């Protein structure tokens, strides 16, 4: 089976794409929940600086030490950003937008200067080449394994281990930072560890998807999941499902249309998000509209019930509790009045006797409940 995988280029590419998505989702979920997802944008850009520096020092681009070294650049960005914010002269969003372009610019200039030595050009920096991951392999026992597959697999395991081991702590630090601090859980330290892993993931994913598309894998699958559920573990599950779905469908479409594979995978995450945004069961746009319509209809029925109840047994009952009064006194048009009467009688709240409308005992109960929820007046 392993041989089959390693002979199948398409499968390898999809697997790398899915691993990028899964590893990013594991850390991205917390970034999205904390409202700091734009940090992934800053990290994605500034690891270019880290990668160039590490390359200039070690003359190697991959390997655990290189990944860690380059990842420190991402953490440095966050640190500098927070330092700038702590001076209270620059707002958080402006600070993010000030720091990472500087590091990115330095990275690009270093690439300009040492272009002959560094085997990355500014084009790949942004876009990555996931279609070529199978070209760069390392020999592992009897197998030749793509380097990206190895580093992404390791990063995914590392992120998963971190999330599983510190699940409780991360959860608390995300949803109630003050309590986490009070319990001595050091949420700040935990957050920096999370960012270090995010940076590491960015470095590992760099060859495959580049600096900017990485942002899509970090933010979009967790955001999609956030639109679908309130449970943290389900968010992970949905995010991972979106990552795998985007990877497979993105690859298929990219091959069919002969366009960038990484780009298409990222576009597909966006497609899944749109789907969740529109058709999500609870927070989706359609569900919201339906719920609002249901509420409006329910209110109409309640209005009718109260109107009938108020005039029940009064001298003007013959004039008020008729369909015409709904038009003249409640200012409903004929169609609306007919609709509400129809629905109310379907729910057995009223009965219609010619023009006159009469509450059933159920309907009377409902009106009484609305006018006197505590039931005090009945006594």
């Amino acid at each position, binding site marked *: 089976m392993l041989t089959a995988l390693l002979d199948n280029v398409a499968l390898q590419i999809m697997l790398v794409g899915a691993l990028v998505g899964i590893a990013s989702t594991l850390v991205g979920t917390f970034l*999205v929940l904390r409202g*700091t997802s734009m940090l992934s944008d800053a990290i994605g850009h500034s690891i270019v600086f880290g990668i160039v520096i590490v390359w200039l020092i070690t003359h190697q681009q991959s390997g655990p030490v290189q990944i860690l070294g380059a990842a420190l650049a991402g953490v440095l960005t966050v640190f500098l950003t927070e330092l700038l914010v702590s001076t209270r002269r620059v707002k958080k969003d402006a600070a993010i*937008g000030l720091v990472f372009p500087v590091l990115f610019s330095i990275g*690009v*200039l270093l690439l300009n200067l040492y272009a002959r030595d560094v085997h990355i050009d500014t*084009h790949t920096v942004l876009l990555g080449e996931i279609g070529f991951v199978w070209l760069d392999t390392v020999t592992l026992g009897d197998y030749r394994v793509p380097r990206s597959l190895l580093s992404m697999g390791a990063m995914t395991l590392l992120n998963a281990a971190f999330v599983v081991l510190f699940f409780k702590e991360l959860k608390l630090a995300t949803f109630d930072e003050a309590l986490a601090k009070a319990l001595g859980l050091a949420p700040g330290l935990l957050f920096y560890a999370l960012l270090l892993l995010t940076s590491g993931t960015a470095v590992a994913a760099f060859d495959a998807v580049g600096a900017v598309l990485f942002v899509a894998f970090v933010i979009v699958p967790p*955001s999609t999941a956030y639109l679908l559920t309130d449970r943290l573990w389900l968010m992970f599950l949905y995010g991972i499902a979106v990552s795998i779905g985007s990877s497979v469908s993105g690859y298929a479409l990219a091959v069919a249309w002969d366009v960038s594979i990484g780009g*298409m995978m990222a576009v597909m995450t966006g497609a899944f998000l749109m789907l969740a945004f529109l058709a999500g069961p609870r927070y989706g746009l359609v569900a919201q509209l339906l719920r609002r319509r249901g509420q409006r209809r329910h209110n109409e029925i309640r209005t009718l019930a109260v109107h009938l109840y108020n005039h029940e047994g009064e001298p003007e009952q013959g004039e008020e509790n008729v369909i015409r009064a709904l038009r003249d006194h409640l200012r409903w048009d004929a169609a609306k009045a007919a609709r509400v009467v129809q629905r109310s009688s379907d729910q057995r709240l009223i009965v219609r006797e010619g023009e006159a409308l009469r509450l059933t005992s159920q309907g009377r109960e409902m009106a009484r409940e609305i006018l006197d929820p505590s039931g005090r007046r009945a006594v």
Partner: protein
Amino acid sequence: MSVVELLSDYTIQNVVAGAALLGLVSGVLGTFAVLRQQSLLGDTMSHAALPGVCLGFIIAGTREIGSILLGALATGALAALVMLLLTRMSRLKTDAGLGITLSVFFAMGVVLLTHIQGMNNASQGGLDAFLFGQAAATLRSDLWIMGGITAVALALVAALWKEFKLVSFDPEFATSLGMPVAWLEVLLTVMVALAVVVGLQMVGVVLMAAMIIAPAVAARQWSRRLEDMVLLAALIGVAGGIFGALLSALSRGLATGPLIILSVSSVVLVSLTLAPERGFLWEALRRVRARRRLRYQQVLTTLYRLAVHHADPVYRSEQGMLDTYHGLRTRAVLSQLERRGLVEWQASPPGEPGPARRWVLTSAGIDEAERVLDALGREDA
């Protein structure tokens, strides 16, 4: 190459003029973006300009700058609207909305870019240069278009100055005056796309964020009024743009965009450090001075309290005792006080045990100590 030669070079003239235009428009529009805490929207919109660049190319069929910029303007503005829609109509927060639109629009751009490359159209060469800008390829005709866009943006700001000002600082009050606040906010947001479009050629989509933010943040440190801030941001943007462009002309093979960004960012660093009142340096100095003044006052009032306690206005305190009392060496502080005539370093009368000289308050010192204690008492009350 001398500066005169440099400035008479046709290409360099174009690059410098383009960089100046970019600095001008992004400084002015960035001011509003930063004040309204929409700094990162510029980042999102510039990344989102990439699909527009490609669409403009596909529709025009050539690298015609007009249609490319129009496409960039359209998708940049569209991204801002999508971002507003995502955050208003769902439970997603602003940061997620920004990140989603940024990355997905950029991904669409990448897809379109590779699609164009697959079309084997000879004229597509260097379309991906819009990622980092291609300042050196700026033509005189490009400058006219960039200048036109800048003029439109500045005219809009000038015409709607009062409205924009009020919407930026007090939208509730603006609403109560019957201003179309929602429309003005959308207009201000979408106008950032104008700056992005001008920046495409010069710094590219990736670094545009800093061009929006940096001049405004730098200008904010030096000014308290919107008028001053806008003018200063424009000035800083223009100066940084020109400096970066000249720097890249002088160096061989260094990209213009990053150099412009680094120039403007250096101005930010200098402003944060040196701006009067707000600068870090002055704050640090103020803190040191306050700490020193506090220590003088502490030592002085200690002497005063000792004198009161012993009912002896010329009570003589030992150096060692004062050190022990304050837990630090007070010699330097006391010498300072002596120079100001508040204490005296008097010789002990012959025959008295202990050190030969001790500290005594002068009458000026007593007045000063009483003044300090009065001030403290007032603060307590």
